[in-house]
């Protein structure tokens, strides 16, 4: 393989964002037809490099050679013309337009008179979606779709280009196992066609399953390119973070602990849909100090379940929620927080971060009342409180007054958890807390959850990664289309059993 001419040759590329050196003198080669994984912590510069490769960023140092020719793209069109397309890490869809319109955005097909040929686009879009084993209607409005489906559209959009080089920047972060499996199929087909793929992911198993070679970046610098067969996840993680990781969580015994939260016949109506219920007759209980994982496919209703518990559901749920034996009915998240429940949302950027505020303000927001006297914020107390949280969570930041955007994804997530913890909750709801978070930060988050649980906090966590759930949970509930379809203790849970329950193939095991 090494004898081949590289299809992409990255030479001494550097990129400066104001004071941030995002990339520094990075050089490596990508060979034709290979699947080349790029790994690194949050903020290591992976996306920046890919944006340079795909013509999104045009202002950089160094050289880029594609197919043996030196290239300098002036825009995404230039990159597309030499056969490079990209699936961006962030969703970049126009919610007001249809699926087909999004897939062909910027490359609309025209008919004889130069006007839009919508029928042709709908047909092609349907073909592409079929390749992805998705039965989405090309005419559906993207805004009405779930995040996972939207990610599939992003993938379809890149496939539509039929390019020879495809960059995939964390394509699976919002997908669950079954969609990921479909994506693997697509990747295999592409590779059979000889497409070169640059693949970024924080999911180690995924990388080791798909990649031929792995390049590791750290702090904007190139560390190493290595054949998959010559390495192992442990070594890669070490290269990424520069130290050993330990993500095992010791089992705890919660049998004798009191029940904190009890959910009885919880249902959430879904007006205007062919299925009347988003959640249907969900029952479970949560004990003190327990970490309860919730598994399910995309759209199974995990997010809705947490939203119901937090008083944030768009419609009020039916059924009964008991907190310490008191029936509660939260009209607003503030009531839930006052009662001792806190939630970390799955969409960090849109629903979690306050981009215009600094680290201190982002952390202290929910605990302001305890830092205030008669409604007046006592600056010292706030600062001390935020400082404490930063230390407790070991948030890495240049200071309390740093912009929240200057933090890596994992550290942003820690700030949001810190914000929740300031309300001193008894129940913590974590909706996919490790989405897009690097291995190092993930391990720290696991450690944190363990500490909190050991201190008696009850935690419900969802995740799109089964291995993660299996690692952290004392118990795992499985949701399938809004119905509880399985419950497994830590000991009995396996990936296979959970997948069976999640796809509705197994009978319900417990009530």
């Amino acid at each position, binding site marked *: 393989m090494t004898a081949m001419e590289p299809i992409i040759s990255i030479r001494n590329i550097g990129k400066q964002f104001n004071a941030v050196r995002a990339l520094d003198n990075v050089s490596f080669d990508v060979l034709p037809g290979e699947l080349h994984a790029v790994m690194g912590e949050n903020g290591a510069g992976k996306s920046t490099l890919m944006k340079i490769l795909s013509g*999104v960023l045009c202002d950089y140092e160094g050289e880029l050679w594609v197919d043996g020719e030196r290239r300098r793209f002036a*825009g*995404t*069109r230039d990159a*597309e013309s030499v056969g490079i397309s990209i699936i*961006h890490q962030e969703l*970049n*869809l*126009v*919610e*007001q*337009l249809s699926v087909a*319109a999004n897939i062909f*955005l*910027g*490359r*609309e097909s*025209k008919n004889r008179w*130069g*006007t*839009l040929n919508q029928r042709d686009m709908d047909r092609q879009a349907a073909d592409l979606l079929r390749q992805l*084993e*998705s*039965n989405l*209607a090309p005419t*559906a409005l993207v805004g*009405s779709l779930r995040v996972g489906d939207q990610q599939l559209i992003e993938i379809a959009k890149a496939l539509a280009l039929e390019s020879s080089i495809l960059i995939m920047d964390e394509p699976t972060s919002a997908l669950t196992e*079954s969609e990921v*499996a*479909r994506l693997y199929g697509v990747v295999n087909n592409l590779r059979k066609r000889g497409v070169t793929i640059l693949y970024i992911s924080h999911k180690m198993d995924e990388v080791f399953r798909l990649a031929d070679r792995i390049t590791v970046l750290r702090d904007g610098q190139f560390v190493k390119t290595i054949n998959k067969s010559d390495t192992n996840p442990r070594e890669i993680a070490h290269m990424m973070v520069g130290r050993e990781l330990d993500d095992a969580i010791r089992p705890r015994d919660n049998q004798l602990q009191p029940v904190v939260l009890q959910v009885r016949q919880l249902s959430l109506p*879904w*007006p*205007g*849909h*062919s*299925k009347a219920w988003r959640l249907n007759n969900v029952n479970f209980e949560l004990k003190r100090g327990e970490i309860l994982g919730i598994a399910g*496919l*995309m*759209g199974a209703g995990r997010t809705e379940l947490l939203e119901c518990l937090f008083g944030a559901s*768009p*419609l*009020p749920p039916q059924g009964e929620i008991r907190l310490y034996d008191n029936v509660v009915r939260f009209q607003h998240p503030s009531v839930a927080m006052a009662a001792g429940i806190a939630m970390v949302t799955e969409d960090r950027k849109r629903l979690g971060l306050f981009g215009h505020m600094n680290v201190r303000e982002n952390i202290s927001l929910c605990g302001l009342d305890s830092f205030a006297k008669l409604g007046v914020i006592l600056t010292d107390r706030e600062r001390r409180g935020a400082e404490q949280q930063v230390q407790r969570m070991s948030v890495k930041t240049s200071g309390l007054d740093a912009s929240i955007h200057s933090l890596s994804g994992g550290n942003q997530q820690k700030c949001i958890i810190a914000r929740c913890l300031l309300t001193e909750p008894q129940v913590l709801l974590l909706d996919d807390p490790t989405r897009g978070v690097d291995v190092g930060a993930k391990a720290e988050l696991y450690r944190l959850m363990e500490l909190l649980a050991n201190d008696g906090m009850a935690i419900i966590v969802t995740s799109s990664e089964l291995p993660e759930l299996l690692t952290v949970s004392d118990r795992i509930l499985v949701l399938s*289309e809004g119905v509880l379809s399985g419950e497994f203790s830590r000991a009995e849970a396996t990936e296979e059993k959970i997948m069976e329950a999640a*796809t509705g193939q197994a009978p319900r095991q417990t009530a």
Partner: protein
Amino acid sequence: MTVSRSTVKQPGIIGRILSSVEAKLILAWLFVVVATIALDPGRTYLNNPGSTAELIIRNTVFLGFFALGSAVIIISGGIDLSSGSVIALSATVFSSLLSVIDPEGFRSGDIQTSVVLVAIAGTLFTGVMVGTLNAWLITSVGLPPFIATLATMVGLRSFGRGLILAVTGNRSQIDFTDLHLRDSLKDVTSVSIVFLIFALAIWFLMSRTVIGRHLHAMGGNEAAAKLSGIRTDRLKWLAYVIGAVSASMVGIVYFADQGSAKPDILARGYELNAIAAAVIGGCALTGGVGTIPGTVLGCLFLRTVIDAVNKIVGTGADVYEGMIVGIVVVLAVTFSQRGATTIRRPFFGTAIGWAAVPVLSLLAGLSFVLFFREKPWFTPTYAIGVGAIVAVSLAARGFIEVKRAR
């Protein structure tokens, strides 16, 4: 391994048509017309249907031109506060060009056609330049559209005033003395035909061409549009140029219609009418959403409501017009776009809802006094009664909402 998925219930074709903003607007419009026929003491709609229709069409068409321009800008994610000033400036430029190029003909009221064509071209080109200026302020200088067009709104009107002083030698307006030309430029039929062509062209652009698709995309998600290789800066330029040129056309027509170009007051505040018409017609100020037929219907609806107020209230209609227009805008936007959000929020069953009940009741009672205090049958008891009835019914609705939420 595909998961059977719950889909949104697709309503039938009739249901879809009926739930469109356009259909709702047509229904609302019919309602206003019927109400006017029923309530107008002068029965003008029945006695003078022709001239009433002409009046409404004229006003709709005049508003329509620049409302369409505003709609294009709103759909593409911007906003234009400068259109009223651009109308004033364009009327000034048009009249100035006429009087400067052919001073003789202008004075004697007999302007050559070639001069008229040059002046029209010059005025439309002024529109292009203004659009370029707006787009430059937004894309290159990086001002938010609201601020950029606020600045051109105050700046261009003042520029027009200075221009007219310079052209006339310190007079504040230019009068249109060529009766023949004036009549042909302001003729309702021909202006309506031009409008129809313009509206069809814009509709075609927005709904059938790649550019229109890209304008929608940019309005919905500018970053995504950019990453899809769309040249958003040029699109913005196009949108603001369309907006300014449409206002320039209105400037020419207004000069003819009013017989004078007086930039200090011409079309003052009209930008808000245009925005209101576009929003009533279904354009979302967040961008990406809206149709051209909807905007035209929005203009028709708004102008019909204003006409209805004049017909029904009669004396002092101007005093109450604002109130009624305000209420109608709220109702139109609320109900024509209510289907859009799946979840109906309570109107009164919340803290603010309860607080609004006395405010609305007081408003209703006082409005009753204002409207009817001079009727012979009027006593304050009635007004208190009306306020009380409103209060009770809103509160009842609030209770029902609270109950339903349980």
